């Protein structure tokens, strides 16, 4: 019957990312036994943790139909400051605290220009991208900073058998998911992204919501910067470059709409980030020519979004039909 076919198709499309994930895993696993090991997976998650966290923050912004192009720059500033402090013999924990504050402050700067001065998010975060990168380059004097092993501990330490970055990711993910699904603020974020005028009329403090998401994004960028720094062990002048695109790609891959109002961090965004990393990881294991990485990654992202667009247009077409059927049933009963 028509509806059963439709339901199957919708099931496939709704879980396309998951299926893609499974597909990619199968292909890689078939080619190399090394792929399916627990250690490898743990590696993948660790490697994707920084992008995943930044992408989680970006998800908040995207949900309001905004965009934050400055996350990579915020990561860089955060890492540069951390590098300077730690190599200057400052203790690690205060340095981390400072980084988080920096993330919040820079996010706040974005928020100020976007909500108070009402400049388009694209332009504001573009500008802070320049400002941030410039500042960080000045801080590091365009040279790389190598971090002492005491800092790298963050990347390699284990807790209950799992590497620290996985715990941090889990924490950030858990809080973000809770906020988005179970708090009034989170639900209002979805409302604002869907229709900002209606949200305002409904009495939502839209300005505060917009401001909050950029601060969250800045914060997450800082956390992501810490994790990335801990894994790389050094701050180079290209730290964090193009991270904004990876974050956006991960979120969109995970089902977040660029138009706002739709998207989840779990499984959504996190899965998107892990998927991208899985592909890269698999490519490395399979000894694929590194030149092919961007080609394959972009192709996969393209396919994922294509599937999502297909899903959206089919859903629109079928919903119309269902409404009619229901009404038919109602008039039957009358």
């Amino acid at each position, binding site marked *: 019957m028509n509806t059963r076919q439709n339901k199957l198709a919708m099931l496939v499309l709704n879980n396309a990312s998951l299926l893609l994930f499974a597909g990619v895993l199968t292909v890689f696993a078939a080619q190399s036994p090394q792929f399916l090991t627990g250690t490898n997976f743990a590696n993948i998650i660790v490697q994707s943790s920084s992008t995943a966290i930044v992408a989680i923050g970006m998800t908040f912004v995207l949900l309001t139909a905004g965009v934050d192009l400055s996350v990579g720059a915020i990561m860089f500033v955060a890492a540069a400051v951390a590098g300077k402090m730690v190599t200057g013999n400052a203790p690690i924990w205060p340095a981390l605290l400072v980084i988080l504050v920096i993330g919040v402050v820079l996010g706040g700067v974005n928020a100020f220009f976007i909500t108070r001065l009402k400049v388009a998010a694209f332009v504001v975060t573009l500008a802070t991208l320049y400002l941030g990168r410039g500042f960080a380059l000045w801080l590091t004097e365009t040279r790389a900073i190598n971090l002492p092993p005491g800092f790298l501990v963050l990347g390699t330490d284990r807790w209950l058998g799992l590497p620290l970055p996985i715990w941090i990711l889990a924490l950030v993910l858990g809080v973000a998911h809770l906020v988005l699904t179970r708090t009034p603020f989170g*639900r209002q974020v979805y409302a604002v992204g*869907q229709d900002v005028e209606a949200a305002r009329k409904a009495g939502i403090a839209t300005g505060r919501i917009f401001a909050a998401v950029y601060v969250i994004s800045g914060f997450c960028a800082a956390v992501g910067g810490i994790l990335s720094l801990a894994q790389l062990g050094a701050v180079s002048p290209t730290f964090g470059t193009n991270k904004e695109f990876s974050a956006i790609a991960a979120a969109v891959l995970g089902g977040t709409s660029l138009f706002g109002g*739709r998207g989840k961090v779990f499984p959504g965004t996190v899965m998107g980030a892990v998927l991208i990393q899985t592909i890269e990881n698999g490519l490395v294991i399979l000894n694929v020519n590194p030149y092919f990485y961007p080609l394959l990654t972009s192709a996969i992202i393209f396919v994922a979004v294509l599937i999502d667009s297909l899903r959206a247009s089919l859903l629109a077409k079928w919903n119309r039909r*269902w*409404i009619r059927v229901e009404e*038919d049933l109602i008039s039957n009963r*009358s």
Partner: protein
Amino acid sequence: MITFEGITKSFGGVPVLRDVSFAVPPGRTVGIVGENGAGKSTLMNILGGNLQPDRGSMRWEGEVYAPRNPRDAARRGVAFVHQELNLFPNLSIAENLFLTTFPKLGRLPLIDRATLHRRTAEWLEQVGLTHPPDILVDRLSAGERQLVEIAKALSLDAKLIILDEPTTSLSAREAERLFALMGRLRERGIAMIYISHTLPDVLRLCDEIVVLRDGEVVGSGPRADFNIERMIALMVGRSLNQLYPERRAAPVEKAGEVILEVRGVTQPGIVRNVSMNLRCGEVLGIFGLMGAGRSELARILFGLDPCEKGDIRVAGQSVFGAPPRRRIQRGLAFLTENRREEGLCLEATIAENITLVSLRQYQSNRVGLLNMGRLREAVNAIRGAVRLTPTAGNEAPVKILSGGNQQKVVLAKWLLAKSGVLILDEPTRGIDVGAKFEIYQLIHELADNGAGVLMISSELEELTGICDRLLVMRRGEIVAELRREAFDGERILAAALGETVETGAP
């Protein structure tokens, strides 16, 4: 309960409200009627805290009431059910209802889902909806969404509810349900302000009536003081002998030639075996209740939606399967039921909107560049033909116009294209009485000049008022056809409800 005293407001030097004063007694329902542009929306926005008056004041139960934003108004107990639905389709019913008032788990900022569910179910029951509280609003029909809007107003523990054109998307049954609900609310002592263009409803529901014209109160008093004629007369400022222009008969030239032929059009789940003929100079109406498939049929005829089988011919040539562009070239025109989303480019100018369909005809021969001079002349001529308000220039963005004028712009667009067949879907929705009359006149003029007009409407009186022939649709099929001489409101309604089936020759 609430009194308005001398409310005055201007926008950019143009006075919109002038010294408006009246009162809404507690527990009473006051109807406000007036043409679009009379100031109703502005007044309600002031009441609801969206705008502040330049002069004048409001009193709530004797005390000064001056809300700075919607939240202030909500806190006092004013709930505004807007004409344009303010629901979020990506959220559930429960989340829509309690978006700013979520029940929380103790001191934590977490939503108490059990309580949320329970309270939502209570409100849904009051408005007669049986959907589960966590269903996404996305899945609801327009009528159901309106009921959710009202449930939302109720849930805010409102003492005064403003209903702005609530019945536009409701079926007759849903409207009755709403009215019954309003009766129960009155008994509970809730005051209401009811704004509507459906004057019979206003007479029926309201205890008192206020008529606005050009920002002033031109008549107010108990219901008994009013009847339809008086309300219209006050609204328009002159007495209208009739709501509808007289329908003269004979069209010119291609008299009676079939310009649109529809045969056995079927799209599973939408329409079934629809056949009809439309002749030049004829105004053919399509009536039906919500969900009858009228708009869907229109979209199929125009090529926006797929059609599985059948034939559609314009001036003898088949357009079945052709995209809208081709059908326009053959002479088809489509005025959709939502002019803001599909009929206009709101941010574009009046001139840009009017010329959108016909641009090709204004190219100079040489390089294909547009002849701006000829375009301008054409726009000015058409503006006159539809009697578009002269206060807005050609370069003004269309979004600043009133509903009636916006609709005229859409009509002008198709007029300029010199279409032979015009499909009009709810052409007078959300338009005041004065502008409605003008649009009826335009429709007649179009027909008299040889075009065929297919008019879809849910207002039976409107269709019987201006059409030559009427088709009734029900559940995707044509169930009755009547000629003007045989127009009978009861028979038509019965056919729409499915109580009698009449098959006349097409």
